[in-house]
């Protein structure tokens, strides 16, 4: 593949018509939440700019981000998107392996110094110098630092790289840390989700390719275009929530009728993601659409905020498994008992002092 091929060249070489290419550009700009006036900018970038080299490295992870990325269901769009970045290094997808592949990484780092995107899937084991995640004979901790040094920007794929995910759930035995804990001097865009939606992943890359900058980020470093609203806000079951019509067990009538899963522990009201808008697998469905409550997989520390099937998180309290209401009731009980005990002592004292007074008189 030519190293400075544009998307338009690539599309043409693959026999995609100009009409389909324009469709792809408009669709991508819609996904990115751009105004229609920005579509030509995207088009121009796709036609004229050489493809952005991407180094995709894998740390402590399950590869579900890659699985999501490659499983897009619109081949004319997503598979080309997959080709649109010049994915020069990816230890999962590359044909080359071993020293040959590592040589490619070093080459890109040198040739595109300060210009390539570093995509990180998975997080970093920091305990014991990072020995719990070794890649190509070196710790992933070192590889990340080395590869990040000359990157233009970093994309943290998935909840692992963004916030930590399962690996850094308590008690976090390997000292797993998200990318932003290790790399402080590079712009990082967090694309959380376990995995993130493929259109979201490709959209972020398209934005960087078009404008040369990262998309606008929210307070947690996520692209606003995809993570600005909660799943709840755009959920098609929201009408049942507002009406107070809830599923209370997985085999009741309400489940069959597709009512709101709030009481089944749905984390949609506290989860920022595009699942209820873009949906999964080319718009086929999403967890709530399939009758399962959202587990909040794109939220920080979602693994420690369980249980998944209850609204209120369990927290350890006085050596037992508890929740906010139980703790609150214990506190109220303690206050009432304290008041009663205090009243009793007051009464006893009063009786005693009255007696003393009477005796004196």
């Amino acid at each position, binding site marked *: 593949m030519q190293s400075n091929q544009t998307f338009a060249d690539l599309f043409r070489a693959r026999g995609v018509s100009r009409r389909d290419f324009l469709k792809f550009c408009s669709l991508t700009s819609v996904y990115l939440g751009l105004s229609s006036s920005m579509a030509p900018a995207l088009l121009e970038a796709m036609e004229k700019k050489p493809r952005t080299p991407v180094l995709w490295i894998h740390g402590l992870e399950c590869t579900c981000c890659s699985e999501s990325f490659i499983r897009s269901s619109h081949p004319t769009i997503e598979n080309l998107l997959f080709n649109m970045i010049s994915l020069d290094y990816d230890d999962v997808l590359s044909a080359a392996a071993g020293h040959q592949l590592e040589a490619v990484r070093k080459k890109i780092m040198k040739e595109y110094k300060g210009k390539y995107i570093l995509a990180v899937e998975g997080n970093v084991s920091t305990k014991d110098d990072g020995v719990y995640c070794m890649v190509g004979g070196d710790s992933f901790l070192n590889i990340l630092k080395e590869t990040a040094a000359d990157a233009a920007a970093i994309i943290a794929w998935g909840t692992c790289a963004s916030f930590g995910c399962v690996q850094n759930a308590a008690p976090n035995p390997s000292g797993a840390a998200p990318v932003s804990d290790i790399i402080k001097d590079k712009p990082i865009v967090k694309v959380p989700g376990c995995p993130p939606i493929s259109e979201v992943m490709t959209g972020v890359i398209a934005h960087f390719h078009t404008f040369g900058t990262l998309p606008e980020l*929210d*307070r*947690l470093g996520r692209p*606003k275009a995809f993570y*600005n*609203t*909660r799943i709840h*806000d755009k959920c098609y079951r929201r*009408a*049942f*929530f*507002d*009406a*107070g*019509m*809830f599923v209370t067990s997985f085999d009741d009538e*309400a489940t069959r009728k597709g*009512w709101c899963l*709030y*009481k089944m522990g749905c*984390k949609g*009201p*506290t*989860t*920022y993601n595009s699942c209820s808008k873009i949906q999964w697998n080319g718009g086929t469905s999403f967890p709530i659409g399939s009758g399962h409550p959202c587990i*909040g997989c794109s*939220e*920080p*520390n*979602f693994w420690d*905020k369980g249980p998944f099937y209850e*609204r*209120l*998180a369990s927290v350890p309290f006085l050596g037992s498994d508890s929740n*906010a*209401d139980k*703790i*609150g*009731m214990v*506190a*109220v009980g*303690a*206050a*009432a008992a*304290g*008041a009663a005990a*205090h*009243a009793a*002592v*007051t009464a006893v*004292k*009063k009786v005693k*002092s009255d007696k003393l*007074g*009477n005796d004196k*008189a």
Partner: protein
Amino acid sequence: MGRIIEEIYVWRLPVRFYHWINALCMVALFATGIYIAAPVLNPALGEAVWHKSMAWWRYLHFAFAFIFIANFLFRLYWALFGGDKYARFGGFRPWSPKWWGKPFREQVESYLFLRSDEPNYVGHNPVAALAHFIFIFCGSTFMIFSGLAMYGENNPAGFSGVWFGWLIPLFGGSYSLHFAHHLFAWIFPVYVIMHLYAVFRHDIVDRTSVTSSIITGYKHKVEEEPV
């Protein structure tokens, strides 16, 4: 019962209004909040489009919340600029070691039955002032800030989202903030129990008609009855 020898106007009308509006809001907010977390009523029959059960509980929670906030801000104004000597921050200086000195110690000792005499204050005693600072001032502030942060969630670019949304990352995500809001709501029933007990006890022991004072505004001093 002895003769009333002195009548003192302690709680002025704005303070009494604040107190009862605050009490009403606290009860309403706690009840609606608990319901929102665990909607227990049976679902309505028919199509969702005709019903707004959950939406109403939430609406009431938000409506009372805004009354609560306005009332709280008014009380702050009154404490700072009202010129009301029984309702200002003036005497409350927990940062100064002097404040924790004799009057505070004596009041604590009295509550712990370590002294036989009851120190008597026309306004708040130092322990009551501390309790109000922790539960009402700090507690309400936290509930208001966290509540507004969550209220802004469906419009992140709006006023609440911009000014209070920073609490969401501070607490490590929206769910954790909801959890903290839920957990800290329980300080209010705890406070109400302690508050009611303390008021009734003072009324019985000191006979200062403190209970009715929050309706009438007047406290009384009663002549010691000869035994």
